[in-house]
């Protein structure tokens, strides 16, 4: 109940379109010239000192990208993006690769402090206080490069590799080469192909067989520069019998023009491994007139490659002007399991087209989809998901529940599920509802002394509870606050 009170306070304290992460950090940047061509691709590759095969990989992707067309099937509208009017590389000016936090620009550290992300590894004292404290290793990505990764030593002790992908290309090229592009192939879709050509950084995680990662891993993405696109690439490999929980958060300054974010995330779970991937997406959503904001065109896919492996996606989507994102699971291994929990909240002029794909290929695979969409203001919120059973996927099982809540008369909520079964023993269940906050519920709460806003916050929190419960503790609190901020002004 305390959290609910917090939500209510938040609703009261913040103005209508206050996005608290909208500040700009004044920091010198090293930028590639505007536009995209083969030279830029080579430039990025050279900056990262990449091996020859990687440069070629990027160039092949770029050539492929030139032949592709932007996807238009999503329920989102935006002016055509001029891909030549973007910077594809921006890095805080510094000596290449900070060795320790002391070398990181203090301005940058302040940015992360403002965002509430502790980059300094806190000394944890043995005993009373420390035992209860949960630790999170953070990889901070600022514009195009990773600026700091914490708790490296301790992770290394457990055999866990957690580093920027540019570093992994130097230190573990064989792992990167073996897995990169195997879940989201270079040719997958327009934005993934673009990402393959120009991705600048991102996180790389490898959990060795049988290891339970000793702490939560986390990446914070921040777009700072003007007119830049952010293209990060995350690759997580959980080897046999391992477990990892990974958190991702993102923010950007307020700007009048739209900025492009086209990331690719690849997860690979081998036999008996489990990956839990949580996202709190809070890119700048644009102002109340719909001006500015991030275009979030992201390809996220997990491959349950081994038997009995499990991948779970949890997302809280509150930011971005446009979201185009479908975290998916390829359930290849026998008895593997995919999960997708999502809260998507849209307000103002935001457009969300998000959902998941559960592709059942192996025997006795199971999946579960819980999606909660909340639309307010002038926004459009679409759930688009696919559940597919291959002919050989005997015993496949899926349960899908997608609920939408509308607040106000000028928003839209849409549900577009594709349920495709080619196997008789596959059992798929799908249910969806759309409704508004019931007057009876509001009346009941208000009768007990809550104001209209408090009552709405309470009911919305209840509506999304199934998903919030799936989030790691740190994120759950943050997500709950976000929900209140995103909906404020919509409660009348």
């Amino acid at each position, binding site marked *: 109940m305390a959290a609910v009170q917090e939500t209510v306070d938040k609703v009261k304290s913040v103005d209508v379109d206050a996005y608290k992460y909208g500040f700009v950090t004044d920091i010198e940047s090293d930028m590639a010239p505007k536009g995209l061509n083969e030279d830029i691709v080579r430039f990025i590759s050279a900056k990262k000192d990449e091996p020859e095969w990687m440069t070629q990989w990027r160039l092949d992707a770029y050539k492929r990208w030139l032949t592709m067309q932007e996807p238009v099937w999503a329920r989102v509208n935006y002016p055509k993006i001029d891909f030549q009017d973007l910077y594809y590389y921006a890095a805080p000016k510094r000596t290449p690769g900070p060795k320790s936090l002391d070398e990181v620009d203090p301005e940058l550290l302040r940015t992360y402090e403002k965002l509430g992300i502790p980059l300094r590894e806190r000394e944890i004292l043995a005993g009373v206080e420390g035992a209860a404290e949960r630790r999170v290793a953070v990889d901070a990505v600022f514009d195009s490069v990773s600026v700091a990764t914490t708790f490296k030593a301790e992770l290394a002790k457990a055999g866990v590799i957690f580093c920027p992908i540019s570093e992994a290309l130097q230190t573990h090229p064989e792992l990167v080469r073996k897995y990169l592009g195997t879940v989201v192939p270079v040719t997958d879709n327009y934005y993934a192909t673009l990402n393959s050509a120009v991705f600048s950084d991102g996180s790389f995680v490898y959990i060795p067989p049988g290891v339970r990662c000793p702490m939560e891993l986390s990446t914070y993405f921040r777009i700072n520069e003007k007119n830049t696109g952010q293209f990060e690439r995350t690759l997580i490999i959980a080897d046999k019998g391992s477990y990892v929980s990974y958190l991702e958060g993102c923010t950007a300054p307020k700007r009048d023009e739209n900025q492009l974010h086209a990331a690719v995330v690849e997860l690979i779970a081998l036999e008996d491994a489990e990956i839990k991937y949580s996202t709190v997406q809070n890119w700048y959503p644009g102002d109340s007139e719909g001006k500015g904001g991030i275009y979030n065109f992201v390809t996220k896919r997990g491959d349950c490659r081994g038997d009995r492996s499990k991948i779970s996606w949890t997302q809280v989507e509150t930011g971005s002007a446009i979201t185009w994102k479908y975290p998916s699971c390829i359930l290849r291994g026998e008895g593997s399991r995919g999960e997708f929990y999502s809260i998507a909240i849209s307000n103002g002029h935001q457009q969300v087209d998000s959902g998941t794909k559960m592709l059942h290929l192996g025997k006795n695979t199971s999946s579960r989809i819980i999606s909660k969409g909340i639309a307010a203001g002038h926004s459009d919120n679409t759930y688009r998901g696919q559940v597919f059973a291959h002919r050989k996927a005997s015993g496949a099982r899926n349960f899908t529940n997608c609920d939408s809540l509308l607040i106000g008369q000028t928003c839209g909520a849409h*549900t577009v599920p594709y349920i495709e079964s080619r196997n008789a023993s596959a059992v798929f269940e*799908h249910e*969806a509802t759309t409704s508004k906050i019931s007057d009876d519920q509001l009346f009941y709460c208000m009768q007990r002394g809550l104001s209209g806003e408090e009552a709405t916050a309470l009911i919305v929190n209840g509506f999304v509870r199934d998903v919030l419960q799936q989030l790691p503790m740190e994120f759950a609190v943050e997500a709950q606050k976000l929900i209140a901020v995103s909906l404020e002004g919509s409660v009348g």
Partner: protein
Amino acid sequence: MTPRPPAIRTKAETALAESFEQNRATMPGGDALRGQRARAFDVFHERGLPHRRIEAWHYTDLRNLMREAYPITQGAPAAAPASGLRIIIRDGVCTLPTGAPPAGLKLTTLRDALAGASDALIHALFPDQGADDAMVAFNAAMARDGVLIEIAPGAVIDEVIELDVTASGDAPHGDISRSLVLVGEGARASILESHAAPPKVQRNSAMIFAVGAGASLAHVFETCADSPELHVSTLIADVGKDARFESFAFVSAGEVLRRQGFVRGSGEGAKIALRGVNLLKAKQHADTTLVVDHAVPHGESRELFKTILDGEASCVFQGKVVVRPHAQKTDGGMKSQAILLSDDAAMYNKPELEIFADDVVCGHGATVGQLDADQIFYLMARGLPRAQAEGMIIEGFAREALEFVGNEAIRERLGAGLADWLARRAS
């Protein structure tokens, strides 16, 4: 999404285009109608046969399924049925019953109605719903005949109006028809639309309903034992204030059947119910694609489809419920359930919601699975052989939808069809 025009015209597309050119001079109707047809043909010509890149046709790739377009023929009118309220449309030509229709009911062949068609009639016959669908457009461009059924305000027609759409001869050919049903305010009627054909027939049929305020219309669509090889059937309905429109489809025959419905509740309190049973086996493919559009407040819609798939059959259910801004208090419920009896069968469900009003209650459910092993065990434990146990469960499953057919005689007839299908499966 604007569909891209086909780069290369298929043989079938060329043949269909040619048949329009050959027929355009002899089509019934005046200039206004000619203009209407030309515009409709342009829509078809621009889009070509629908293919899997067209979202609404994703699972029924007509470009691929219709390799060859059979010549579209006009036969001689069939002999007039002597008894009953039975209209025959054979090879696209309508024949009315000889007996006088009951009071309040007026039947006219469309070719006669078109000869002196008023603008209002043309408007009713070519509504904007579904007009941008290539196959609806082709039907609009090419239909010469069909039946115009007019039910006077307040009239109650107890007898079922039967519409037999059939074809003759063994030569491969195509037939096209379009019929219009105008239901006056407060009137009540029911229509049974049956489709039959020799093996080599491609059919494109359209039924258009305008249901006046407070009126009630029940429509049943059924396939007969011999049905067209390829059939695109379109249903367009506009449902007025406090009116009720119910349509039930019983599909058990035909190789490829695409049923598409565009139903709009345009008056407050309109009630729409679309239901059906699909019984498919061998290589049959049946597609039900619906758009239910709630344009005004207090509308209600219910969809319920039950599908049984055996052999290598495939079935598609795409249902979209649209609630427009201001269509508050809409109550929409959609359900599609399928049982797969064979490993080679496939079911594709796509129930969509598109909602722009906040004070609504809309939901959909879709399930796919096989027969419940517990239920079979329960029945077999009581001494029933497996085949009979399965049959009993399937029958119960299908009857949940069948119960909604209001007319007892039709319900029994469809029930017999179900029993017959099950008996043939068991043998």
